[in-house]
């Protein structure tokens, strides 16, 4: 039921709202009782009945208790968690990336943002028992070309581990849908039109935008900051809508800017407060000065790997923790 005139109300009220062209729930709820009474000629108590009916219809379900939610009852889709494929990081994230809101992965260049996303693109295909969501991924590239060579490399390592569960001739690459976009308009078309089509035709359980920054950083002059935040919020509202409709995680990569303050240089995520206000979880990746020796079975025998750090900056359910990790041929690995 999507129109006020289809509500179960007495004909007098229905014809009055029809006459007054109050043809959406929105218009009825945003007007005050007195205003509705004036334009429809209904009495205040009738308006109250009408509003209550409309409100009940819009809210749909009656409230549920937190217990129902905790036990996964009710028609709210239960929170899914997508494993990162690394036990230490999963532990810090209490199981993985949530299917709620937007998860931002930010960090300086070469800190491993894309690596982590590629890894998520693989783990999402695993069955639920193994921490995946048993579906494909929509991977939107806005920066460079999609690093398919690197993905190939990681796929080999991934299949080595998961051959048993996935079957030996499974090709993870077939479930990764890549879209290259160059500017905001293309990105919006992609998210508004192409993604829903993709969702309709195949099982996609993860959206990755790599990165949001590229599109929004360059194209806006200083005085266009308001326009930028409006564009950002249009993008975010569509991503959130897709995310909550399908109950899937949405991951966005963000770059950092450096900010000078009294204590020196500090890296802060780009795009400012307008963006920060719209995301739910922020994960920051960074490089440290340390290296550790890798015992790899490769040709070189011994390779040095830079130790990197994953830090949870904020999330409604996580404490601020830091996990050191390295990147090797198979992807991201937490170290102990």
């Amino acid at each position, binding site marked *: 039921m999507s129109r006020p005139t289809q509500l179960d109300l007495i004909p007098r009220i229905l014809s009055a709202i029809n006459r007054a062209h109050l043809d959406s*729930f*929105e218009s009825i*709820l*945003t007007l*005050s009782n007195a205003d509705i009474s004036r334009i429809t000629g209904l009495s205040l108590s009738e308006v109250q009945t009408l*509003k*209550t009916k*409309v*409100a*009940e*219809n*819009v*809210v749909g379900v009656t*409230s*549920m*208790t*937190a*217990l*129902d*939610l*905790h036990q996964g009852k009710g028609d*709210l889709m239960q*929170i899914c968690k997508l494993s990162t494929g690394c036990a230490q990081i999963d532990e*810090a994230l*209490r199981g993985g990336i*949530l299917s*709620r*809101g937007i998860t931002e992965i930010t960090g300086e260049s070469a800190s491993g943002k894309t690596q982590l996303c590629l890894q998520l693109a693989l783990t999402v295909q695993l069955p639920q028992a193994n921490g995946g969501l048993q579906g494909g991924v929509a991977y939107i590239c806005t920066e460079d070309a999609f690093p398919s060579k690197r993905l190939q490399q990681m796929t080999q390592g991934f299949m080595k581990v998961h051959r048993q569960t996935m079957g030996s001739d499974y090709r993870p690459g077939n479930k990764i849908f890549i879209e290259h976009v160059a500017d905001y308009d293309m990105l919006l078309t992609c998210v508004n039109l192409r993604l829903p089509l993709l969702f309709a035709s195949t099982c996609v359980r993860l959206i990755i935008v790599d990165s949001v920054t590229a599109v929004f950083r360059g194209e806006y002059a200083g005085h266009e900051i308001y326009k930028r935040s409006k564009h950002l*919020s*249009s993008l*975010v*509202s569509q991503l*959130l809508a897709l995310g*909550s409709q399908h109950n899937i995680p949405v991951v966005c990569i963000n770059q950092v800017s450096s900010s000078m303050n009294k204590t020196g240089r500090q890296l802060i995520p780009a795009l*400012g*407060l*307008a963006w*920060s*206000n*719209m*995301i*739910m979880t*922020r994960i920051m990746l960074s490089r440290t000065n*340390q290296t*550790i020796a890798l015992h790899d079975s490769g040709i070189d025998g011994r390779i040095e790997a830079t*130790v990197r750090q994953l830090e949870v*900056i*904020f999330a*409604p*359910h996580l*404490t601020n*923790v*830091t*996990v*050191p990790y390295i990147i090797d041929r198979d992807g991201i690995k937490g*170290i*102990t």
Partner: protein
Amino acid sequence: MDGQRELCTFPLAPNHKMKLSAAGFLTIQDLKGIEPAQLGKDTGLSLEDSEGVLNTVNVADKMHWKSGARCGLSALDLLQEEQSLPGIITFSEKVDQMLGVGVQLCKVTELCGEPGVGKTQFCLQLAVDIQIPTVFGGLHGEAVYIDTEGSFITERLADIIAATIRHCEHIAQMEPNEELLEHLKSLTMQHMLTGIHYYRCYNYVQLLAIVHLLPAFLKNHPKVKLVIIDSLAAPFHHDFEDFSLRTRILTSMAQSLVKMAAEFKISVVLTNKMTTKLNSSGDNGAHLVPALGESWGHACTIRVNLHWEGDQRRAWLCKSPSQAETTVPYQITTGGIRDIIMEERNQAQNAEDETPVKQQKLS
């Protein structure tokens, strides 16, 4: 009591007022017992208009009499009434002191702050604290939680509940008596999760609808003493073009929330985001202000600004009718909102929680 009230103080159309006064109708007294037809004849108003005038005056007059009962209260009565109202404790003594007795009942409190500073954590903490039995210093109430962002994660809620139950057990151990132990038994995770009524809301139309239905819900659930909206800003952030509509909706929503808070003696807690405001005085840069615009700032009775100072979280009471403007530090632990100086037991426990992650040795 007051047949002397002047007609020009009633919400009447200006030209009606003019005609009334021109014909010599000045106070309510003058309209007593007069028929619409007679009034029309005397003033030159149409029959419909004079009926309208009489109706307005009667209705407004009656309301005046009804509220007259409240008008008889002295400031002392009001003070005593307010002082007798308990508050909702936050588990941070300093924040409680800053707010008086914790988050006040009958009032609308706004929490604003940057992302990650702990707005949602405060909300979760309050939703749990409201349920603490009276013998342990709580209100033994229930909470309504309206979630507009999807940031209500029950896993996190469970952490806070577990810590709260531990806290109550601790009290019971200190002074074991029958009553405390009796209440402790009913204090379970399940019980406390049931005491939170959850609404998920995706856009402002749904939010309006929920707020509209709340009075009826509160009537049916008299135990509810706290309504949380986390966050109020989110539904108005995305794609909201019409700012005058936004102001109108927010004002009317604020009105109904204030009314609800007073009528049902509940506390309403809202969260708001921060936004950047460019300084008008040229190139001084920008500073952070709460979102939703200037007019919204008047809507809440109490406003608390949460922010970072260095790596410490601070709560700043920036608007309150009764308390002085103060800033206090607080922290967020696994158990919820706490003072920075903690009891030993908690500290030990926290240290246990954190060491495995924080001090990892690199091989």
